[in-house]
């Protein structure tokens, strides 16, 4: 959080309504998102209680474990969940496009990818646990479960892993995405309550949002009062319908809220880089689908040393790219960097589009632009700059003096003797330059997994499914 967001929070508190902290939407929204609201039994690590899910807001599916301590019912529930989720995922693997690559074979990429929307971070964590508790099961052997269950586990694990990947929109937590676009007048701790955050954004704060009788918690944990007074007697009664109806009352309000949150986000114009990130999501999805089709083993419990280092490096690069892209897409995000002196914006007051450097054959066109700004610039001379107005362009800071910044354009103004039309800003144009650049960063060279040095535990043992995994207790 920055001072800019803090100020927005103060303003929200003062005005009694959330304030925007983004001018465009930074996540992709699928045409057919799958909203998924899981509930778990209190006190258990990953005992599912119910889930409401579906792609049609008017037709949610409610799946319930009528007797949450019964292992067979739990797996039957997982199979039912698979019956809804897997067809949704598998249908999207069918349509693909061929992507050509430099120095590599072309590959097939799905034209659309699934999108799972959960209410909050807790929903993501629970999805990961559900994935963990089902992906090692087996359809054969001494402890058979329905064949779709381990497959479901692998996809749930995939979804949860993507949720942690910066900039990915394969799995979204509603509170996280809302919080990226609006600042409420409460603490970030309280923002984790979807009902409270939504009421800050739509109507203004309401104490009802914290009343579990009006707005039941968005899961995965249920309200203790509900557990004691409604759920426990219903389970005791042995009536599956009664349990289902009780849980429906807890899920339906959240169901409506999540769709409302999607509508709020959909009303924002999409950021310029969103499509590019979604393309990566589609590529990742196709990779996973191919992995599953090839019959590769389920995701490991823990990454080996090399895999973990590679994953971390990937995520760091994704985070850096995501930060830069958001700043380029959204002046409100860029403002954070302007506040800290890493970017500046202002009006062009003078240009020298024909400025050159060097003599004879090495003479190069280096147009100069002078920008007048009120921003506190804290960039040294010679800093490489980029600009959201002309994305391919590269520039260097030549001089900064009393709010007048001279910039030399070094890249992206054409190869001719004079600059390509439109590549040098005109006097009077508003421009923004920043030291943030989305330059490609090569990945660190890591050894093959088989060559993991002894300092890092040596080569990891390959995964061989065994009966012990398949029979792991789930109580």
């Amino acid at each position, binding site marked *: 959080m920055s001072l800019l967001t803090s100020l927005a929070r103060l303003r929200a508190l003062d005005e009694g309504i959330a304030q925007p902290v983004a001018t465009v939407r930074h996540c992709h929204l699928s045409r057919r998102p799958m909203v998924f609201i899981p509930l778990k039994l209190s006190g258990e690590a990953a005992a599912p209680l119910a889930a409401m899910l579906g792609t049609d807001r008017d037709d949610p599916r409610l799946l319930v474990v009528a007797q949450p301590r019964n292992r067979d019912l739990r797996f039957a529930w997982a199979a039912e969940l698979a019956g809804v989720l897997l067809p949704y995922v598998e249908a999207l693997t069918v349509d693909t496009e061929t992507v050509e690559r430099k120095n590599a074979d072309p590959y097939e990429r799905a034209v659309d990818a699934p999108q799972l929307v959960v209410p909050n971070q807790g929903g993501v964590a629970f999805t990961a646990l559900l994935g963990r508790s089902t992906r090692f099961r087996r359809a054969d052997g001494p402890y058979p479960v329905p064949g779709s269950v381990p497959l479901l586990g692998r996809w749930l694990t995939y979804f949860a892993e993507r949720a942690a990947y910066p900039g990915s929109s394969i799995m979204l937590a509603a509170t996280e995405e809302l919080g990226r676009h609006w600042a409420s007048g409460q603490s970030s701790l*309280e923002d984790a309550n979807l009902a409270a955050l939504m009421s800050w954004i739509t109507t203004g704060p309401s104490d009802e949002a914290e009343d579990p009788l009006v707005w039941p918690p968005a899961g995965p944990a*249920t309200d203790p009062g509900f557990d004691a007074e409604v759920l426990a007697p219903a389970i005791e009664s042995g009536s599956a319908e009664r349990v289902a109806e009780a849980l429906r009352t807890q899920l339906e309000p959240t169901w409506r809220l999540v769709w409302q949150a999607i509508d709020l986000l959909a009303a924002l114009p999409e950021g310029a880089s969103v499509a590019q990130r979604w393309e990566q999501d589609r590529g990742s999805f196709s990779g996973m689908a191919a992995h599953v089709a090839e019959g590769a083993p389920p995701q490991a419990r823990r990454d080996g040393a090399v895999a973990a280092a590679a994953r971390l490096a990937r995520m760091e690069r994704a985070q850096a790219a995501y930060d830069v892209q958001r700043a380029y897409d959204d002046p409100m995000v860029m403002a954070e960097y302007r*506040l800290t002196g890493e970017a500046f914006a202002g009006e062009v007051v003078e240009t020298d589009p024909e400025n050159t450097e060097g003599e004879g054959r090495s003479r190069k066109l280096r147009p100069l632009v002078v920008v007048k700004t009120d921003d506190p610039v804290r960039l040294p001379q010679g800093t490489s700059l980029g600009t959201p107005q002309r994305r391919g362009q590269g520039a260097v800071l030549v001089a900064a003096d009393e709010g007048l910044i001279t910039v030399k354009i070094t890249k992206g103004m054409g190869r001719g003797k004079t600059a390509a039309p439109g590549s040098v800003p005109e006097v009077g144009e508003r421009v923004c330059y920043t030291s943030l650049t989305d330059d490609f960063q090569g990945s660190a060279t890591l050894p093959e997994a088989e060559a993991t040095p002894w300092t890092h535990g040596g080569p990891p043992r390959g995964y061989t499914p065994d009966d012990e995994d398949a029979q792991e207790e789930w109580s």
Partner: protein
Amino acid sequence: MTGLKREGDPVRRLEALRGTTPPRPHDARAIAALAANPGCARRALMDGAGIDKDAAARHLGFPAPFGQSPFAITRGNMFEALVKADGCAELLRMLRELLDLPVEEVAYHDVENVGAHLRHTHTRSLLDHAARSTTAAEPVSAATFYDHPLLSLSIAGHTAYLEPDLVAFQLGGRFHVVEVKSFSVIDGQADPAAVAAAARQAAVYVLAMRTTLEELGHDPGLVSHDVVLVCPENFANRPVATLVDVRKQLAVLRRQLTRMTTLDRLLDALPDDLTFDLRPDDDGRPTRPVAELADALSRTTARYAPDCLSTCDMCFFCRDEARQEGASDLLGRQVRDELGGVASVAEALGLADGTRTPAEGQEEIARLLRNAERLRRECLT
């Protein structure tokens, strides 16, 4: 400080604060939380006086948002029973592996069997005896579990008894605190917040045991700073034990406890007739007018932070108060730190708008706020 106000002995003053409401004992959770917000005078006084904060908050119309699901309670109890079954047989098996112990048999003392009023003295004498047996240099191979010991700890100059929720394991005069928790450890990882809370609580027990040993003239180092955390493994009910080093938590706790404004000083600043009494009737129902109680409480300064929402029973009352005052504390410590000493929302916004002239020392934050405001406006139009 004159002697006049000090005449009233603090214990009696605290009793007056509590009035006719029955005292409520501290548990380790409360002490760990107290150390988390040592600057809150309201909390220090209420805890020091043994006031039932939950009842007070309920009476004020701001019931605490905590409740435990019956399912969670059942599961927790089942798990604890499993670990402690047959004189902690399962626990011994785990400890043998974890601490590499050459122990075959173990004695088991359930201190709870002793009458409530004797439990503390009994615990002390058991600890004394165990510690003595090592100094006598006799070859001790007998290990002992002490279940439900009652420990005491001095909080802000007053003795607090710790609601027992642990097993102490003793071998050769060395003690380990064992904490049984029902959150799961999955593939060697557990919820970091849950582990941190457990470690803070365990640190309170370690500190209490060390203090007791010290008082008895033994080496406090006999109590290990490695506590044994017992949790269910993966998705099953099978327990798994892990050693958790609580040295850091101990240091924090010790520092916070010594730093904590002594209650005497806080009491001095209060009007003599102030009381937080709920005036319960014969059925224990509070009869004190709500406005009167709220007024009495507002004489003490609270230090609200959103973290209180997960630890303190009074949180909704104090949050409401912070809202009425327009305090920037409402938005969390991060925002407050970012604002660098600007306490109220109106003040911060005034500095941002330029409608308020910065006081001395506020120039820098005012400049930043004005800049931020200018940028926000520019982006929104």
